[in-house]
């Protein structure tokens, strides 16, 4: 038994471990979003989250992965990797793909129909994401953009597609009054929100840590551990910064903002956790939280109704994180910006087109009455908490 064999085993194990952590983001996103929407839309959001994991991973297994990493045909055919099992690296990459849609599912919630949304998920996991991935991580023409685990490739891609979706969908009924005022629609279940955000945070250790791909040497092990510490640090800084700003504004500790601040910090560090030192993540995460706090009202001003704040967390910070790589480490700002712009324009425009087509052909949005009654009954026929007496509608 030689050492390279053991390295292979160790790295395979490490990828599996990382992928499993990422998959904890499935319940993570599910609980976060189930907690943030009103009780009448909880089942629909959960169904969407379950299905998007199933659909995206399935498409990716059949052809998406091959498209992204230049295999031939289907089912990992023609994929050759070295140093670890190809099944493990596939599993790891597969764990990423549904995140692009998970990011969106909260933002389009409370009004989108599930099946049309799943249609988009097929396009995303079967074409958009594999293409963007092949340009960057797959060694294509954007390979010089540094994006460790996908501030741009995952988070902005999901964010741009979400922006397109929201523009096509329009805001929830009642979110903006006739007089143009914004009516907050509060989260229905704060423990679920917190649980979800914490599971996401934990999943991020696999997301970013695993993106080093190998842990089996001294240097690699140091790098992985540093990435994870930095990831965590940006989350801490995001939470603390959001706390401070929100407290200064309202003298209250709005937990939905604090958690969004943490998530914003985590998104921001995702591009460069490997190339910065120990203190830079504090700045990156803190700016990330600032951006979240200030972006949320801006989107609302433009009547871009994002029930969970996903645009601010994922799109804005995906961009910021990718830029931050150039500011805090030795990478070309031009290259980073070029990547951001090309991927942004591509993803936004193609997503917009597809959502318009879906809307025309099969319809995208629930009708007004069902929106009032909640999507749970119309889309799923299953109430989320049938026995509890509710007081909001």
């Amino acid at each position, binding site marked *: 038994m030689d050492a390279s064999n053991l390295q292979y085993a160790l790295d395979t194990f490490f990828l599996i471990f990382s992928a499993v952590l990422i998959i904890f983001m499935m319940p993570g996103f599910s609980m976060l979003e189930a907690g943030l929407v009103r009780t009448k839309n909880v089942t629909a959001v959960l169904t969407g989250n379950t299905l998007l994991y199933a659909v995206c991973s399935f498409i990716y297994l059949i052809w998406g992965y091959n498209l992204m990493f230049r295999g031939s045909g289907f089912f990992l055919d023609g994929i050759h990797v070295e140093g670890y099992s190809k099944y493990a690296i596939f599993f790891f990459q597969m764990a990423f793909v549904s995140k692009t849609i998970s990011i969106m599912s909260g933002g389009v919630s409370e009004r989108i129909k599930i099946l049309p949304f799943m249609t988009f998920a097929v396009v995303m996991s079967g074409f958009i994401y594999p293409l963007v991935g092949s340009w960057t991580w797959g060694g294509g023409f954007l390979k010089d953009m540094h994006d460790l685990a996908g501030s741009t490739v995952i988070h902005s891609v999901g964010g741009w597609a979400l922006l397109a979706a929201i523009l096509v969908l329009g805001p929830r009924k009642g979110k903006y009054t006739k007089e143009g005022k914004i009516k907050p629609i509060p989260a229905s279940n704060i423990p679920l929100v917190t649980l979800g955000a914490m599971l996401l945070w934990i999943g991020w250790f696999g997301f970013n840590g695993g993106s080093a791909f190998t842990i089996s040497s001294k240097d690699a092990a140091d790098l992985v551990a540093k990435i994870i510490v930095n990831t965590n640090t940006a989350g801490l800084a995001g939470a603390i910064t959001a706390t401070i700003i929100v407290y200064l504004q309202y003298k209250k500790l709005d937990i939905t903002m604090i958690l969004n601040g943490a998530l914003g910090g985590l998104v921001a560090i995702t591009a460069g956790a490997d190339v910065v030192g120990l203190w830079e993540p504090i700045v990156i995460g803190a700016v990330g939280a600032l951006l979240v706090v200030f972006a949320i009202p801006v989107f609302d001003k433009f009547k871009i109704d994002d029930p969970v704040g996903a645009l601010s967390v994922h799109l804005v910070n995906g961009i910021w994180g990718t830029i931050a790589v150039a500011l805090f480490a030795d990478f070309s700002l031009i290259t980073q910006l070029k990547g951001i712009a090309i991927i942004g324009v591509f993803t936004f425009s193609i997503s917009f087109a597809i959502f318009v087509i879906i809307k025309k052909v099969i319809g995208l949005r629930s009708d007004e009455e069902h929106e*009032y009654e909640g999507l749970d009954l119309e889309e799923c026929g299953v109430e989320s908490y049938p026995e509890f007496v509710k007081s909001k509608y």
Partner: protein
Amino acid sequence: MKKIEAIIKPFKLEDVKDALTAIEITGMTISEVKGYGRQQGHSELYRGAEYVVDFLPKIKMEIIVKNDDVDKAIHAISESARTGKIGDGKIFVSSINKVVRIRTGEEDEEAI
């Protein structure tokens, strides 16, 4: 003094409240109830079996008003709660013998 009880569709609550405050009726008590009537319940699913939920969520408003205000209150509620679809609800009026404001001990019309 009269008590007006109105059973309305939940999503009309804001409108009805606004209509009442517009005519300066600013005290009311509401509760969550379930109604059974001509409006049919909806069907739900559970593990591949359908079933009907026949009690529908409604809001009950209770408003104590002076005798003089009864008609305009009824009018305000009817107009603002109406969708024209079945299940819009009902208004019931009954008599109240006495009202006390706990905080001050004021009674009857002064206490409304």
